[in-house]
Structures are given as C-alpha cells and as structure tokens.
C-alpha cells in the first residue's frame, strides 16, 4: 500500500464570527477514497486546506501516519492537491507543469521529462506535453493537474471539487478515471464535493459534514439506506416526511403498518422518512391521490402527489411509465414493505415534502 493514514483530531477553525470547523474528528484509512460531502460553508474545504497546510486550525491536530503535521509548512507536506479552479501554471507547457515539483527538487531534466511523459500517459493525455494550458480544454487541464499532483508520488491525494468546473459528460468520465487511478495506485484520497452523486459513486466511504461537524461517515449504501440523522437523510437523496403513529417498534403510515428501523422515538406522533423510490404509485380512479407535477428524467420520472389530507408525497416511477401518470391522474399510494426510518415530528410540518435537491 502506498497510502498513508490520515487523522483529523478535534479540528476547530473560526473565520471571524463564522465557525468553519467545530471539532472535526475523522480517520481516513490507508488507500481509502473518502468523500467529504456537505452544503457550502460546512467546513469540508477548510478541513482539506488544513491537511494541505494552507490553513492553520485554531485547535486540534492533523496526523499523517501518526505524525503530527499541523505546524509543518505547506511546501514540506507529502500531499498532492488538485484544485477547483484551473491551477496550471500558464507560462509552462503541460510537461513542465507536471515536472514542476520535480524541478523544485532538482531532478535532472531528462529524468523529469521522462517521468512527466509517463504521468501524462497515465491520465490519458500522451500527446499534449508541448501544449500550454490555454490550448487545453477544461477536462484536459484537470487531467494534467492530476498528473502534476501525482508526480511526486505523494502518499495522500487531495481533490478540492476538481470536477465542478467541467461539463456533465466530462465530469462523469473523469471521475471514473480518477477512481480507477486511485485504486491502482492505492493512494489515500480525500475528495471534497458538494455533489452527492459524485460522492456516492466514487467513494469507499462518505463523510457528511454540517456546520463544521461530522454528521455521519459510512459507505455509500449505508449512508443512503440508513442515514444516521435527519440532516443526512435530507441531504443525500430526496426524502419524504410523512406523518405516522408509532406504537412499540411499529409505525402506521398511509394506512400501512411497517417495522421501525433503528431507535423508535418516544412520542407517538412522528415523521416517517421514505425515499421516493420506496413509494408505490398505481393509477386508480378510486385512489385518494392526485398527481400534481410529473418531471421526466429519462430512466425515471418523479411525481409530486397530493393526498386527500393535503400531504404531498414524492414518488419515483420508471420513465417508460410516466405517460400513465400525467398531472391530474388519480392514483393510489402505498409504501414498499420494509423497515422505515422514523424521526421526531419536526416543527416545520410533516406535510411539506423536502424541496428537491439535485437529481440523483
């Protein structure tokens, strides 16, 4: 394994009155790709910058393989970084950009060029060595930046939303390649993103941050299926909040009685959290639901259904069925028979469906 173990211990960082990090504790295993996910301002980039050395935590420490590097200057840390904005040196061509770190370390030119060419081949750009950054597309620039970050064989790779400036198609191919490279090199990688799809599809584990604290860290499937907190449930994927009645370890919701997943709340009145894909909708002239909005997404269509009591439910149906669920259609709504998450009734009213985040 080439990767190092990275530990954040009790990191705190304030900028004026805003708290960017509020006691972050997180351990990243050697060779793991971990995604730091959260809304903007949750401290994910600050955590990464503390690890890169561009930011000093007010409290707490950063450890790499057990060694405290909190006070080590940025240029003496063993971490390669790819930035969100294009960061190639405009005055150097791609090969010299990749070789920059080796040049700083006084590696002879011939060796440097050979190694740079090798890395450019690794990122799939064998023939752009002589081109300058302004002659490369955004995706190519980020690939070269990745090669540059890997050139010194760092033991930690830091990715600060490297794909956010790219268009959708390039983003998807590039993230697959980053993952493949990361797996083959076995390098510990920390990937900051606000895009849940990116986080879920690439990472071994996803750490969800909120207000500078760790909400949950788990593998993508667990995070999606068993969110530890309501915040995680809402941030990752879309979620319905349906009013339910708890009795013992079962809950009655939409006329169905389902087992409760995990801890049941003390109160009888509770919110039942259900993913849109776990909502079953069938056209039924007798049903008490009416399709209000249908948005087609190709493989699926997301329906907003209003029930007789005013509750709104989001439901996903296969895309090819969307014609049967035109707005105005009367439908019957049911839930998939499986344990559901229950949280204490939120003040904001259970009736409101969660505002839709990005498409998943």
């Amino acid at each position, binding site marked *: 394994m080439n990767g190092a173990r990275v530990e954040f211990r009790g990191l705190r960082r304030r900028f004026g009155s805003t708290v960017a990090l509020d006691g972050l504790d997180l351990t990243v295993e050697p060779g793991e790709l971990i995604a730091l996910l959260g809304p903007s301002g949750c401290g994910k980039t600050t955590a990464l910058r503390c690890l*890169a*050395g*561009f930011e000093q935590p007010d409290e707490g420490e950063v450890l790499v393989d057990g060694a405290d590097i909190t006070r080590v200057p*940025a*240029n*003496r*840390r063993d*971490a*390669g*970084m790819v*930035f969100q*904005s*294009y*960061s*190639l*040196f*405009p*005055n150097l061509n791609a090969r010299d950009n990749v070789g*920059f*770190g080796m040049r*700083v*370390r006084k590696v002879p030119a011939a060796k440097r060029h050979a190694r740079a060419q090798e890395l450019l081949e*690794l*990122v*799939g*750009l*064998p023939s752009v060595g002589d081109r*300058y950054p*302004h*002659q*490369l*597309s*955004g*995706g*190519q620039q980020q690939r070269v*930046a990745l090669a*540059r*970050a890997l*050139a*010194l064989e760092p033991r930690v790779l830091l990715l600060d939303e490297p794909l956010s400036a790219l268009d959708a*198609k*390039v983003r998807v*191919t*590039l993230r*697959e*390649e980053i993952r*493949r490279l990361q797996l083959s090199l076995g390098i510990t990688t920390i990937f900051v993103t606000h895009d849940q799809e990116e986080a879920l599809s690439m990472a071994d584990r996803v750490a969800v941050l909120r207000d500078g604290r760790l909400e949950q860290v788990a593998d993508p499937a667990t995070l999606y299926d068993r969110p530890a907190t309501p915040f995680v449930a809402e941030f990752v994927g879309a979620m319905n909040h349906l009013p339910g009645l708890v009795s013992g370890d079962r809950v009655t919701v939409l006329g169905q009685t389902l087992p409760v997943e995990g801890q049941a709340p003390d109160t009888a009145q509770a919110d039942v959290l259900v993913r849109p894909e776990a909502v079953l909708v069938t056209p039924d002239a007798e049903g008490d639901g009416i399709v209000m909005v249908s948005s087609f997404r190709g493989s699926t269509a997301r329906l907003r259904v209003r029930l007789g009591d005013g509750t709104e439910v989001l439901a996903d149906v296969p895309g090819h069925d969307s014609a049967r669920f035109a707005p105005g259609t009367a439908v019957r709504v049911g839930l998939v028979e499986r344990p559901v998450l229950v949280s204490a009734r939120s003040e904001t009213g259970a009736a409101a469906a969660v505002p839709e985040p990005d498409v998943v």
Partner: protein
Amino acid sequence: MASLTPQVSTQLAPATAPGRGGRPRRPRVWRGVVLVLAAVYFLVPLIASFVFTVKAPDQGFSLDAYGQIFSAEGFGGSLLLSLGLGVATIVLVLLLTLPAAVAVRLGAPGLRPVLEVVCTLPLVVPPITFVAGISTVLRWGPDYLASTPLYQTIIAVQNPDFPVVLVLAYVVLALPFAYRSLDAGLGAIDVRTLSEAARNLGASWPHVLLRVIIPNMRSAMASASFLTLALVLGEFTIARLLSFQTFPNWIYRISGSQAQVSVAVSVFSLLITWLLLLALSSAGARQRSGS
C-alpha cells in the same frame, strides 16, 4: 484509458472580435475622422519642428543641427545619466511594489484599498511641492553633524555623477503607474491558486515569486517599466530645481543658446524615447504571445 475518454478539443477560444462585415459602414467613417484629427494634433507640431531644424537660411536643406547635437557639450553625459536613473528607478520601484502587491493580495486583501490610496498619492502632490520639501531636507544639516553618517549620506545621495536622491524621488513619482500596471497584471492571474499549487509541489515562497508569479507577470512588469522610463526621461521640475544635469535639463540649457539645435535635440529625444518604449512593449508582447 484514452479510449474511454471523449477527446474534448473544444479549446478555450479567445473571444473573437465581433464580425467586421456585419457592422454598418458609418462608424468606420467616424473612426477615420477621429484618426485624422488625432494625427493632425500630434503630427503637425512634430513636422513643424523637423522642418525648422533642417531649414537653413541660405542652402534650403541641411542636417547640420543634428550633427551638432553629438558634438554639443554634455549631450552624452546627460543622456547616459537619465538612462541610468531610469534603469535604477525601474529596478527599485519593481522591487518595492511587486512583493507588496503580491503580499497584500495573498495575505491581507483588506489592506488593498489602503495600498492603492498610498500609491496614488504622488499623483495629487504637485512636483513643485515635492521638490521644495526635498531641497529643504537636503539643505538642512548643522555643521556639528558634518562627521556623522547621516550627514555623509545626505552628501552622498547628491553626488552629481549619479544623484541617488533623484532615483528616490522618481520612485515616488512612478509609484502610481507601476502599482496600477502590476495590480492589473495580478488581477489577470489567479495568484492565490497558482501560489498554493506551487507550495503544494514543494516550492518555497521565494521560488513561488521567482518561478511562478514573475514569469506570468512579464507583460505587466514591462508596462510598469515602460511608464516609469517615460516618466524619468521626461521629468524636468525636480532635476532642474535640484540642479542635476539630466537629459531634459540639458535640452533646456542648450535651447537658450542655439535655438535650432535645441529643437533638433527635442525631435531626437522623442525618437530615442519611442525606440526604447517600442523595445520594452514588444518584449512584453512577445512574452504574451509566447505563453
């Protein structure tokens, strides 16, 4: 891996100039009018000066006046002095403003307005006020201080062979122009990300400045040097009142005795200045197209 990747070759094409053909013709006529007016404004005095210098009362045409320039006493010395002062001023003003501008951008963005105001101040202070202050300071110095280093320094900076005091004064005068050019240059590159990328690759701060920031600032530095040189080659008030024999001062002196030669010198100095500025700006342009 390459096969996986759609080779996206959409280059970040520079915004192309709006199509010329599509434009109505009228604006081009006006452009011509403006050009002609500007040309008349600038060229008429130049041509008049030139005609005056080559017109001899009896022969009709003669380049004698230009020949006399080179033999005139003090010409070479004063020109070299002005060029030397220009180079020293450029070096000093760049050494002062570039690290300051970079440091403010990276470390204390809040101080930027302050730096901007400080660097613009020389524009609002009239040179005559400035030089009055300088000469008062230079004249001060009671005799009992004669043997102290302070006094010696005051004497040394007034050395007529290379008056350092003029360099100091010119640095102040050039600050607004140099700072504006450098600030615009820094605005054009993402200094923070570039320096962080370099730091991440193991570069020390001096290395970042020399290898990353300066190479990407060449055209801005060229234009700062350009403006500073133009300023030094044309500055008269301070040099005159402190009685140093700079080139503009020499022109002034010679114009009193030989009218034709003095105008010839003016035309000639204009030519030299143009050539120097052309050289500087083409150095900047070559860098721009090369990057």
